[in-house]
């Protein structure tokens, strides 16, 4: 587990890590810089929000003018959603507010301490600010960006070339987990259970926080469809160019390999309930 995206980028480039979940624009920027990696799948859809101080003066997007907003990286969808929301309200995020980069685990504390006026971040940090009583969601990403994407699964090209079977197993597992989390009438039960074991064994966070993020409401974070779609990524690339973090648009095929998502298309949800000894 890492605490920031720049460290993940370095670990991936040095082959300490062979695959990584990272924000989509960072993966695109790496590819544009010639780093041999490809996006093979999505981690989730939605799950990001802009949060302001609960008792603060920001009640509308236009109130963000002149404020300090934290984002996880200049190469993040959380930054792009701020540009998009500001533009929809007749403002320019580049001129009308100040963006600062901050590691995700630090933003809730910075908001509570008054060091920033708002943050744009993925879950569970918006939930942390809400539960803590000092933050209020100004808007969820879905309100300005249908089918919003944040984290994607990136794999080194040498691993794709030499070990495609291992990559397919990884993608299949993510696909099955997503279907399990979104399984119609069992979704809430599965998400509560996932919050418990992910909180304790992977994220080392209070499961209460993840329970809130995964069920309040149930579609706050979605886990399907996770196949990388051309139109979604063209939107991201265009926004990256418009906002000055990418010199020129690069073609979808240059940074996405869709074969593993196609291979996972027939997958079904894991058969697993709390108390089972293993998932099947």
């Amino acid at each position, binding site marked *: 587990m890492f605490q920031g995206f720049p460290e993940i980028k370095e670990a991936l480039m040095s082959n300490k890590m*062979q695959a990584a979940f*990272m924000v989509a624009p960072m993966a695109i920027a790496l590819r544009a810089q010639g780093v041999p990696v490809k996006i093979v799948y999505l981690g989730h859809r939605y*799950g990001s929000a802009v949060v302001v101080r609960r008792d603060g003066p920001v009640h509308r997007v236009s109130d963000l003018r002149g404020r300090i907003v934290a984002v996880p990286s200049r190469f993040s969808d959380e930054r792009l959603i701020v540009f998009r929301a500001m533009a929809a309200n007749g403002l320019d995020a580049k001129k009308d507010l100040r963006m600062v980069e901050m590691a*995700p685990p630090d933003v809730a504390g910075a908001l509570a301490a008054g060091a920033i006026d708002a943050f744009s971040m993925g879950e*569970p940090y918006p939930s942390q600010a809400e539960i803590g009583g000092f933050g209020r969601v100004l808007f969820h990403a879905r309100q300005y960006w249908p089918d919003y994407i944040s984290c994607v699964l990136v794999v080194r090209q040498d691993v794709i070339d030499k070990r495609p079977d291992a990559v397919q197993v990884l993608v299949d597992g993510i696909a099955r987990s997503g279907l399990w989390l979104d399984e119609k009438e069992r979704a809430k039960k599965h998400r509560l259970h996932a919050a418990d074991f992910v909180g304790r064994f*992977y994220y080392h966070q209070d499961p209460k926080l993840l329970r809130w993020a995964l069920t309040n409401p149930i579609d706050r974070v979605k886990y399907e469809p996770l196949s990388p779609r051309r139109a979604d990524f063209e939107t991201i690339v265009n926004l990256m160019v418009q906002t000055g973090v990418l010199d020129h648009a690069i073609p979808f095929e240059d940074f996405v390999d869709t074969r593993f998502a196609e291979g996972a298309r027939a997958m079904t949800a894991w058969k697993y309930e709390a108390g089972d000894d293993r998932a099947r």
Partner: protein
Amino acid sequence: MQKLVLAIGAWIIAITSAHFALNVNWQVLMNDRLPEGQRKLNVAYIPVT
């Protein structure tokens, strides 16, 4: 003198054993020694969606 040497030796062995047991991730170490085609992939993440 012999007792002191034995005590220091026992202390070093105890501390070294505790270090190997508590601070070394043996799974990662053993995985890195496998032939490339048999290694588990290391997947990086941060605690955020």
